[in-house]
């Protein structure tokens, strides 16, 4: 007779289980950035909205020991795709620092010249270092008078501007004369002169130097403003020679339009 003997063998060591998991995670992040850009003739405010889509691939390796201890190691690889949408809103206001403009006197003389006096109010943008020195109550606006003479017979425009307040801190006078260029017909020459003074005890010299430096650096902006105004006028009538455009610039100087071509008092 045969006997069937079943033999059991048992492994007394622990059991090891290995599993591999693959996870796919999708994350959506929203970022908001605000940037401010300053263009020559307008202030642009850009709002950027970024949408990031992240695709994460996770590889997890879990090692389990039957005594119920799991060790998981996950390796995630994220790929982020950011889409930024920038919306720029241009505030097309040439001279945002000129707040108000009023004609306070006007006369046509016997020899057909137009005399005008205008009152302008501008922001008073102090540099950082000056903000600490001067009281915070200091008026943030500057009043400026501009006297002008338009002479259509001699084809010249003369303007003279000076500030009414903040004169102790800095007094700036500027004269501009627009005339036909003798050497170059069909062009206009502009002669600008400025006089700067300060009566702040002990600081008059550096303040004057600062004022002069600022005037020179602002010239570029002023001339670009003038070119912009002229190009607008010329856009209306492309055949116009520059001379007429200057006269029209004179017209716009005396009008409601902002006056970028005027010598600005940047105090």
């Amino acid at each position, binding site marked *: 007779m045969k006997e069937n003997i079943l033999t059991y063998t048992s492994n007394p060591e622990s059991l090891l289980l290995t599993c591999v998991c693959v996870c796919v995670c999708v994350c959506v992040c929203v970022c908001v950035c605000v940037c401010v850009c300053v263009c020559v003739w307008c202030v642009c405010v850009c709002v950027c909205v970024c949408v990031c889509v992240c695709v994460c691939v996770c590889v997890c390796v879990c090692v389990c020991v039957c005594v119920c201890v799991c060790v998981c190691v996950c390796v995630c690889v994220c790929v982020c795709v950011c889409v930024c949408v920038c919306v720029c809103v241009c505030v097309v206001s040439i001279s945002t620092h000129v707040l108000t*403009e*009023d004609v*306070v006197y006007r006369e046509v003389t016997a020899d*057909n010249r137009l005399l005008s006096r205008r*009152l302008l109010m501008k922001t008073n943008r102090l540099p950082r270092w000056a903000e600490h020195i001067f009281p915070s109550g200091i008026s943030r606006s500057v009043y400026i*008078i501009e006297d002008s003479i338009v002479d259509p017979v001699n084809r010249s425009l003369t303007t003279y501007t000076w500030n009414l307040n903040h004169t102790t801190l800095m007094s700036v006078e500027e004269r501009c004369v627009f005339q036909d260029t003798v050497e170059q017909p069909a062009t206009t020459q502009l002669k600008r002169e400025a006089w700067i003074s300060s009566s702040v005890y002990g600081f008059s010299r550096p303040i004057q130097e600062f004022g002069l430096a600022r005037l020179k650096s602002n010239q570029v902006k002023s001339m670009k403003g003038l070119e912009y105004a002229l190009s607008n006028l010329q856009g209306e009538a492309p055949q116009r020679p520059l001379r007429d455009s200057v006269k029209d610039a004179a*017209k*716009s100087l005396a009008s409601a339009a902002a006056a970028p071509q005027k010598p600005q008092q940047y105090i």
Partner: protein
Amino acid sequence: MNSVGEACTDLKREYDQCFNRWFAEKFLKGDRSGDPCTETFRKYQRCVQKAIKEKDIPIDGVEFMGPNKDNST
């Protein structure tokens, strides 16, 4: 562009429109016929001079191109 007197801005715009038309079409062309803007100018000035007094802006007392006389060319 606004007026220094908030209530005057509309009057200012009305005057400016009248002036611009006269300046371009009459003055620059040497036409010396009457100024059509005297009435609008008067209304505008009444308003703006009042606002200037209220705000104490020191615009009086200086001759036309006055300070310029001290400065040599």
